[in-house]
């Protein structure tokens, strides 16, 4: 279970290589049209790419987490979430505990990011924490941990850097081409040969189409990996229904994540933009497979192994998702689905209140409030950051608590 999903790695490598070639072609054309030397253009393209890489290496995940307004939490801030992440870390055999972030947002969503299994982070919205029970949360966290374990986060980082470089170069090249006139080479006295014209036309087409092409490749990578992360989540949790029921809640809650944007969208567990009714259509431009389909596949699983996911996927989509090699190596062992954790019935107000309180307490703490439990009656108190006294009287039982 610890190997990456191998055939998929090859497929992804081909797609990333395709984006790389696209980038080099743009460089070639820029060099050819404006600089009289295709090689220099290609070198420029590579330099742009290297610089973007360095920026990402130095603070890639910080940027993403910063944009999303995520706040880092520790084991005491939200024990349930921290525990569930640690459970999935152990189940997946991941060596290092990922950082955990919370986004204060009523929408239901989560994502994983980072430079690799040792520098990874998982972010979930506070809405998710309020609405999901433990099994569902486990399914979602299992999905995100799979993105880390299957090295999807690195791949998506790599792909998004390539995408960014392509878009940037193409944008500048078309601007220069339009306003500066791409004629530098053709004024050199030689008549424009047919071959030269073809290259120029192809190059212009390339410049215009490449951002869209790169985007399509990017999305193709991300969609496929959503299914695979679902399969791994089912395997880690031994309980596909947890994730299925969580996705169902996600589908019925059509709130957008306020801080999501186009660049961060593919990272979320479900598309942060279009939810609800949009969850039925799948086209080339969607970052995520439709939720309804993912739920159907998870619910049709007869066991929790990769093989079961493959069978189920085949019955729904009539094609293969996990390659033969991987299945033979790791997926063939039969894995039974476990019993659901005994949860209080949904009508249990006490449990519901405590789940909401858990999250809201966390939000209080994040705004620098101090939470105190009365030493006598156990009532919870929230002290504003400005409260400087040494003790406080419990409003419930009158007991004086030292701070």
């Amino acid at each position, binding site marked *: 279970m610890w190997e990456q999903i191998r055939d998929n790695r090859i497929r992804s490598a081909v797609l990333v290589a395709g984006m790389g070639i696209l980038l080099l072609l743009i460089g070639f054309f820029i060099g050819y049209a404006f600089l009289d030397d295709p090689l220099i253009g290609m070198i420029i393209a590579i330099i742009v790419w290297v610089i973007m890489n360095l920026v990402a290496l130095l603070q890639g995940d910080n940027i993403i987490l910063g944009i999303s307004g995520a706040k880092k939490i520790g084991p005491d801030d939200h*024990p349930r979430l921290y*525990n569930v992440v640690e459970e999935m870390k152990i189940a997946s055999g991941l060596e290092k505990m990922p950082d955990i972030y919370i986004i204060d947002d009523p929408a239901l969503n989560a994502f994983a990011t980072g430079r690799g299994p040792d520098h990874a982070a998982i972010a979930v919205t506070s809405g998710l924490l309020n609405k999901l029970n433990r099994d569902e949360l486990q399914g979602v966290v299992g999905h995100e941990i799979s993105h880390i374990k299957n090295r999807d986060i690195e791949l998506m980082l790599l792909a998004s850097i390539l995408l960014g470089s392509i878009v940037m170069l193409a944008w500048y090249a078309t601007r220069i081409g339009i306003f500066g006139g791409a004629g530098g080479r053709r004024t050199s006295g030689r008549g424009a040969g047919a071959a030269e014209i073809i290259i120029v036309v192809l190059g212009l087409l390339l410049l215009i189409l490449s951002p869209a092409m790169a985007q399509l490749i990017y999305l193709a990578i991300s969609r496929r990996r959503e299914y695979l992360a679902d399969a791994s989540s089912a395997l880690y949790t031994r309980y596909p229904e947890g994730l299925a029921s969580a996705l169902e809640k996600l589908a019925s809650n059509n709130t957008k994540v306020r801080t999501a944007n186009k660049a961060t969208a593919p990272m979320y567990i479900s598309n942060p933009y279009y939810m609800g009714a949009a969850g039925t259509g799948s086209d080339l431009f969607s970052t995520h497979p439709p939720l309804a389909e993912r739920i159907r596949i998870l619910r049709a699983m007869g066991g929790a192994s990769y093989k079961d996911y493959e069978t189920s996927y085949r019955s729904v989509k009539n094609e293969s998702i996990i390659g033969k090699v991987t299945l033979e190596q790791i997926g063939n062992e039969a894995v039974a689905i476990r019993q659901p*954790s005994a949860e209080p019935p949904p009508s249990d107000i006490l449990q519901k209140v405590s789940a909401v309180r858990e999250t809201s307490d966390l939000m209080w703490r994040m705004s620098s409030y101090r939470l105190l439990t009365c030493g006598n009656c156990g009532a919870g108190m929230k002290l504003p950051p400005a409260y400087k006294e040494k003790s406080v009287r419990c409003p419930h039982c009158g007991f004086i608590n030292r701070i």
Partner: protein
Amino acid sequence: MVIAIIVLAIVIILVLIGIGIYNGLVGARNQMKNAWAQIDVQLKRRYDLIPNLVEAVKGYMEHERGTLEAVTQARNLAQSLASAGVAERARAEGELSGALARLLAVAESYPTLKANENFLNLQEELTSTENKISFARQFYNDCVLKYNNMIQMFPSNIVASLGRFKESEFFEVKAGAEREAPKVSFARPESK
């Protein structure tokens, strides 16, 4: 001369393959040990949590002295077997899980206890520790399976027998002990 070179080349290739397999075996064994250490960490954590739990619920559960004692005893037994073999340990830990689950199930019928924040925290920690133990066990058993497969399958079995790699035991909680346990914690007490 030519034959000598060919033979030498074949020998070198075989040795290189052998080294590769050997390293693979060592890697698999280390991963397995690592996975075992994970289980160990969680089991120790559970030993540490149980006295706190017993302390926290003692005042509320005067009538459940038997349940409490069963948990304490199972814990002490499991801890005393901490350096015993895998199978023996698994049995003791399985019994502890069962006793603990019974205690947590009984605790459900004490509303005042359920309102106690200290108890709720302990309950969350114990539930999660139980989960972590079973996930760590799951991963450990996967590692053992992979390692044992390497030892049994050709051609790695040759290197394994030369390097004296021994098959490992699975950490299996006896079905009996587990069936006895109402699935941890939040379960409503059945007809209590």
